[in-house]
């Protein structure tokens, strides 16, 4: 018996994963660029930048909230914090459960119940994303107080990632997330059970 080791065509790499995150990074950069345009000079006194920073992060959070209510408002900005939901919806879609409407052979009640739980899940993610922006604002204040400035946009992006991982990690480890994520999967399965199980 002979063996052929595994090979993969480069096409198997989902380039869309790269492009989606690239677009999200560009959206993040646009947010920061707007802030830089409005920000006082580096030599400005604390009350000036303090106010500017607060106003900017208030707008950033408002943009996040808007993307919750209408994901088409700024899909690339929304993608910055809905990675988990997007990944979940892909998994759900592979089981034949659409995020948009029930299939003809699926119970509308089961699908609506699932959507209800998914809405709760999205809200939990949104709270974590807002908490991450609060944390990032706090970290920027601390850095400013220490006289530290960012060298690059990427450095700020990495700070934003760290803040999201921190607030998300706290949420993930909480009892509420454990209960809700279990309920989400159970509700999804409820949809499948009323339709045709995926093979």
């Amino acid at each position: 018996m002979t063996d052929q080791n595994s090979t993969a065509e480069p096409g198997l790499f989902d380039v869309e994963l790269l492009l989606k995150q690239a677009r999200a990074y560009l959206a993040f950069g646009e947010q920061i660029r707007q802030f830089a345009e409005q920000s006082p000079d580096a030599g400005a006194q604390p009350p000036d930048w303090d106010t500017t920073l607060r106003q900017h992060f208030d707008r950033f959070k408002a943009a996040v909230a808007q993307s919750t209510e209408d994901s088409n408002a700024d899909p690339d900005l929304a993608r910055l914090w809905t990675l988990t939901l997007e990944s979940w919806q892909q998994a759900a879609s592979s089981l034949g459960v659409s995020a948009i409407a029930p299939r003809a052979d699926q119970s509308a009640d089961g699908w609506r119940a699932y959507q209800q739980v998914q809405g709760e899940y999205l809200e939990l993610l949104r709270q974590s994303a807002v908490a991450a922006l609060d944390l990032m604002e706090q970290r920027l204040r601390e850095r400013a107080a220490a006289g530290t400035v960012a060298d690059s946009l990427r450095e700020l992006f990495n700070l934003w990632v760290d803040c999201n991982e921190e607030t998300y990690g706290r949420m993930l480890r909480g009892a509420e997330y454990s209960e809700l994520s279990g309920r989400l999967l159970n509700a999804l399965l409820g949809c499948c059970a009323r339709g045709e199980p995926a093979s």
Partner: protein
Amino acid sequence: MIGLTSERITEELRSFSAKLAQGGQTLRDLGEIETGVSPREAVYQEDKLTLYRYQPRVAQPHPVPLLIVYALVNRPYMMDLQEDRSMIRGLLDAGLDVYLIDWGYPDAADRELSLTDYIHRYIDHCVDALRERCGQDAINLLGVCQGGTLSLCFSSLYPEKIRNLVTMVTPVDFHTPDNLLTHLIRHVNVDLLVDTLGNLPGQLLNFTFLSLSPFRLAGQKYVDLTDILDDAQALRNFLRMEKWIFDSPDQAGAAFRQFAKDFFQQNKLIKGEVNIGDRRVNLGNIVMPVLNVYAAQDHLVPPAASKALAECCGSRDYTEFSFQGGHIGIYVSGRAQREVPPAVAAWLLAR
């Protein structure tokens, strides 16, 4: 305030977009991405399982074969990802005769495969095949992650067939406070899941693993990728890992049902309450020498979950090896190549 001007940010975004556009050509020019680099031959097959022997790299390999039992989750080529990142090559270089079970890809026809099948049938048949082939009463067993848990069960049930047992990043106590996977599966209706889907889809497993750190694993990673889009070698390394991450076989329904309920949800292994078929798994029966390798920064199998073995196995020759890295780094990092295979081989060759 942030030290960046609008012009500077615009320039950085322009540079990022340019790298992205140029990287497309590098991706197209890469050709085949190979995973699993060490020469090997299939020596036994049963259903979708294949038992491989890796070509020895010394003239006289050690007479006692080493059987690697990988997890049912993900694919075992992580142990042999590329020439300079291969735990298997390190073991071969140290003079060991290395075999590995490839479980294949379960499909709908395998939904009734249970842990009884995996342990009493598949692992047992592979162990017997090697005992006969090599003329040994007992062989060396190396279980990886979930494969380590299966190896513990097997070694408890058939201690006479195992000379030395190595467990690597293996959960034993599933209810340590830092066990995120247990935390996530706690409220899942496992019976509903298996009754509905038959097998557990690999894509659901992928979601679970990515959801542990989504901003790094599904976001930042791809932004950082643009930095190496002009480096074909670095890109190949990235794509090998990427392929492995998303190469997730479905899990046979019956086996997943028992593993999720008995091990994750009810922590029966450490309580001595797991039954495989009609036989009870008693970790106290594990009296052969044991080397327990864990990763100090493991986010999937916390060290405490592995180290619990010390208190419940029956071996008087129990050794721990702590690797300073994480659950993936223990296979593929440069440090792992330098430290882990030599330590495992030295421990085995001394016994």
